[in-house]
């Protein structure tokens, strides 16, 4: 019986000119967006890969150099773009892409593309994620809103129920029919994405990309089930088609356009972030005056000097067999790292709290769960951004420590600032090789959203089993 | 007052109305009988200017409806099968609104008069129409028609769905209007009601007026027999 209902719904939808045209337009847009998204991904990927390569070349060709000069010269690292950027670019254009790494000081990720765009960019970009998140649900609403009205006004519903069709079967049939229309579009994207990803085997190797693609497909399929179940049940409950459409459209606008902004705005108000000047000022101050405010840099240096002199049993740094400057700089690095850990820890805590705030709203608005999970599965969310930032900082620490230790123990003496190390030594230092987190890690950060979307699915299924779905309610 | 000259309406090959000739004088009630799709509503729509005739002419008080639709509307009133009004306005407000649109401005008392005369209970005059029954809405519709002081009145299945008492009240009201000189064209399925109120009865079939009789010529049963033989 279900199969017949689904077939019939497909036939009707296909014969309704507006719906079939809309379906074809959205399908076309999906193909176009996926393909152009792929081109865009390739452009950005190459841009960043080339930039990273250029910086590495410069690092390797810096000539014979004093390690400390090299630490000041520093290098830049680039946030690699995830291959699934072509499906959901997420925060990429709003987040910095390059990070300057040098001694003494930590920088923030810089040069977000959106900062060079006008407010036109805030209207949104045409990408597959936008169509899948915003337009496909709308198509489902248009298909579903009068799915009972047609049969009600023509009297076919009365006939169908008289033929012995159970009201719940009718609901399920219509839900599955609407859902299958979305799944067809999703399949289109999945196949094209798979082909595109396979065309770049070096980027899609490993199971993680494929797991993420599968995860994204499952996520969207689940969300479309929510929309289908909600739309069909509302269409069954509301008799006037215009009212049912208006209700569904209101829910769509509220969940897709209004609530995400309201929640983001409230999250920002709950945990306002410091301005970069204040933030740097605080770090600078603690580095100078000490983490507790009573341990100035001079005192720390003197203490450290005494400790080293005692260790080597000499009374002056110039008598040390090693280069004291290297040790002192590294000691200062350690202190700077502790300051960074404290302040970035606080900042990350605030950012995570903002993210948690929006995550909780998924229980009210399943669209939020979809958006956050989509960002997460595409490896283009805040957590991945912070993951990269941390990885880059860890690399910086290792690099600067290596340079400082070379300065200290490489054969130079205290005050020997002109001492140089051959270029080959620098090129032997390991390059930054960022390993993006695996899908399990990404999903772990989004447990709330996962629970919320599952709860929504359960709720809508539960509503279908409610005793109120009787023949008289549908008629 | 209500005149049709060779009035025709075609939808492609289908003749919804075929060469209709009709002349309804002031004070006359002309009832159109016929099966569904016989052309009764199309006839009324041509007089109301809702449908442009394919050939022929529909005139109200000597005004050609097709060439002066707005002018002709000044002289006619209409009561559809189901009178739908604004649910968030009271019966009185609906009457005031529709009358003012037609260019008549009445005092509150006059409006109440019209509604009471149409048979609307006094206590419901100021209630929202959304709470009215079909019969009550029909009465407001009659009040709207009478308040327009039209010389021609068109009624499309006006008693359908009304209870016998309401139908009877309605018949009395129609006769009163006719006595006041209004020409009335009523499309109906109700042979007995037609016999009761009509001056003349016309029977339509496939867009043609196939028979016209004075209502006094037959009893209701005879009329029914003629109707069944004709359609």
């Amino acid at each position: 019986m279900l199969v017949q209902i689904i077939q019939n719904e497909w036939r009707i939808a296909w014969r309704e000119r507006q719906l079939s045209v809309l379906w074809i337009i959205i399908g076309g847009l999906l193909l176009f967006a996926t393909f152009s998204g792929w081109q865009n991904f390739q452009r950005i990927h190459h841009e960043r890969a080339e930039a990273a390569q250029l910086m590495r070349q410069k690092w390797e060709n810096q000539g014979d150099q004093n390690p400390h000069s090299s630490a000041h010269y520093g290098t830049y690292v680039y946030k690699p773009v995830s291959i699934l950027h072509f499906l959901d670019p997420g925060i990429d254009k709003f987040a910095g892409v390059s990070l300057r790494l040098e001694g003494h000081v930590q920088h923030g990720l810089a040069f977000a593309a959106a900062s060079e765009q006008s407010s036109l960019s805030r209207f949104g970009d045409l990408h597959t994620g936008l169509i899948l998140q915003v337009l496909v649900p709308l198509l489902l609403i248009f298909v579903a809103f009068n799915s009972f009205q047609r049969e009600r006004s023509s009297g076919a519903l009365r006939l169908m129920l008289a033929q012995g069709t159970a009201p719940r079967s009718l609901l399920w049939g219509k839900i599955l029919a609407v859902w299958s229309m979305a799944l067809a579009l999703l399949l289109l994207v999945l196949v094209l994405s798979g082909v595109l990803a396979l065309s770049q085997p070096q980027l899609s190797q490993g199971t993680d990309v494929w797991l993420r693609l599968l995860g994204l497909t499952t996520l969207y399929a689940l969300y479309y089930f929510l929309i289908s179940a909600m739309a069909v049940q509302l269409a069954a409950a509301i008799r006037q088609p215009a009212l049912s459409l208006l209700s569904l459209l209101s829910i769509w606008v509220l969940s897709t356009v209004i609530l995400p902004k309201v929640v983001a705005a409230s999250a920002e108000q709950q945990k306002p972030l410091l301005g970069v000047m204040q933030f740097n000022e605080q770090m600078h101050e603690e580095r100078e005056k000490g983490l507790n405010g009573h341990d100035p840099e001079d005192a720390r240096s003197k203490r450290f000097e005494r400790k080293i002199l005692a260790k080597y049993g000499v009374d002056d740094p110039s008598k040390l067999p090693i280069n004291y400057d290297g040790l002192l700089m590294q000691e200062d690095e350690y202190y700077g790292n502790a300051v960074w850990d404290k302040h970035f820890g606080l900042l990350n805590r605030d950012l995570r709290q903002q993210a948690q705030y929006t995550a909780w709203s998924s229980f009210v608005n399943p669209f939020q769960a979809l958006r956050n999970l989509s960002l997460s599965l595409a490896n283009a969310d805040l957590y991945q951004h912070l993951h990269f930032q941390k990885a880059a900082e860890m690399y910086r620490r290792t690099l600067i420590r290596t340079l400082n230790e070379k300065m200290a123990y490489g054969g130079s003496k205290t005050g020997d600032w002109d001492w140089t190390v051959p270029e080959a030594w620098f090129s032997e230092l390991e390059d930054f090789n960022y390993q993006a987190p695996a899908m399990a890690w990404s999903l772990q950060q989004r447990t709330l959203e996962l629970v919320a979307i599952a709860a929504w699915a359960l709720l809508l299924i539960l509503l279908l089993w409610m005793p109120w779905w009787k023949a008289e309610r549908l008629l | 007052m209500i005149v049709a000259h060779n009035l025709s309406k075609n939808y492609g090959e289908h003749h919804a109305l075929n060469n209709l000739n009709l002349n309804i004088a002031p004070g006359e009630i002309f009832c159109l009988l016929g099966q569904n799709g016989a052309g009764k509503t199309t006839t009324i729509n041509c007089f109301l200017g809702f449908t442009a005739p394919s050939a022929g002419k529909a005139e109200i008080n000597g005004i050609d409806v097709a060439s002066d639709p707005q002018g002709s509307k000044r002289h006619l009133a209409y009561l559809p099968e189901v009178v739908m009004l604004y649910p968030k306005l009271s019966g009185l407000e609906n009457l005031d609104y529709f009358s003012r649109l037609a260019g008549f401005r009445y005092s509150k008392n006059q409006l109440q008069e019209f509604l009471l005369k149409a048979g609307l209970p006094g206590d419901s005059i100021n209630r929202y129409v959304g709470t009215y029954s079909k019969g009550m809405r029909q009465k407001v519709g009659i009040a709207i028609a009478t308040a327009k002081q039209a010389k021609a009145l068109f009624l499309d299945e006006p008693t359908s769905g009304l209870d016998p008492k309401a139908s009877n009240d309605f018949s009395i009201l129609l006769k009163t209007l006719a006595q006041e000189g209004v020409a009335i064209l009523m499309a109906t399925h109700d042979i007995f009601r037609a016999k009761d109120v009509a001056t003349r009865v016309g029977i339509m079939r496939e867009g043609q007026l196939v028979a016209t009789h004075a209502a006094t010529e037959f009893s209701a049963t005879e009329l029914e027999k003629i109707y069944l033989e004709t359609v």
Partner: protein
Amino acid sequence: MITTILQYELKQLLRKRVGWALFLFILLGGGYAIAYGWLNYQHYRTQIDEVQQKQAETYAELAPKYDTLTQLGDQAPERLNSFGDPIMADWWYRRYSTWLPGSLSALAVGQRDQQTPYHRIQLYRNVNLPELEEINNPEQLLAGNFDLSFVLVYLLPLLVIVLGFNALSQDREEGILSLLKVQGLTPKQLLFTRVGLQFGLLWGLSILICSIGFGVVAADWAHWPAWVLGCGAWLILWAGLVAWVNTWGRSSAFNATVLAGFWIVLLILLPALTNFWVDRTYPVLPRSEFMATARDISSQEWDRPVAAILADFQKTRPDLYAKLPQPLRDTQAIKVFMYNENSMAKVEQLGAPLMRTGSQRLGLENRLKYLNPAYAFNAILTTSAGTELSNFIDWQNATKETLKQNRELVTQIGLAGKTFKKAEFERLPTFKAPPLKAQVGGNLLCLGVLAGLLWLLVWWSAQRNAAEV
């Protein structure tokens, strides 16, 4: 007749719960947006104020030192020597150019939240290479701001749709239209009066909300007419769409579907497509090559022999070269200034395309606005609030100008071998904000032309479907 329709339409609207719900929705939405914008602006303002306060404190701290240097001359204590050095004086006096759009930016955040609103004014600084990058939550940026401009651009059209999608169809579906027609009312009169009334109410409502917003944030009322006219033009456009769809004579559900489609097209698809077009035509240039090359230019220039730097300096800045005290005695002492001028000239040349891209993008967006009226309306709000990219570019250019003035002063004093005293210290330039350039006329014209064309279409469609309308 029109007065009667207006009177009764208004009466019915006031009696409908949905009307009040919508009114409350927009009022609450607007209120929340204003409150959010105001808090957001306060937070932003506090940060800028702190920067400006720090600059004032630095000035207050340094001024007495320069008084002493001026009064005592060579007798000044040795610890003040570094303050006399031009490069050090420039370094000690930490000045910033700050991007501070007015309080109206609370109502139209625009691109303000994406920019770093301060830039250090110092000899070596380049506007293309900001020292600081503002801290943001990129997911919040992606979600966007719930400010008043969002309410006006996105939500106002929804109200027009909800109120007007069945402006004619409902009467037809409910069977009232035939009765109305018999009374001598034409559907065209009913439709236009009804849409006109809804437009009037919504425009009144938007004027009210804008006025509350302007009052609450104490904005410059000179921009109020632009906002009010912008809302009017935007609403006329949407009222036109609503009227047009109603002239087709289709069902209310069909009208609602089509109008929802228009909303998607005008507020999501067209902006996304124009964005796509702009991005492909003028992609945001990657800065990596610029950064790397700028750094190399700088270090290579520094490593060159002084004579070579001097020779280049003669070509780069013949005006300054001519003023050099002859014969040149200590070229090493002035090397830093010459090196800086040479490398700055090269870096600026290198950075020119970066500066140009923003303007090119804006130019194209401006040309495409006739395809994208939502952008035109948004631009009225953001440019008058001073939060559009164009305003930011104006600020960048003004910053660049201040940087140039600063460099000229420090370099001239340095090349002349002079030291900084109070007079020189006072001459160190501080940033002056550029005048606000609101782009109202062109965008209003765009909305007006589009609305005019649309209403012609409405008139034509109403004539064509006269039987239905």
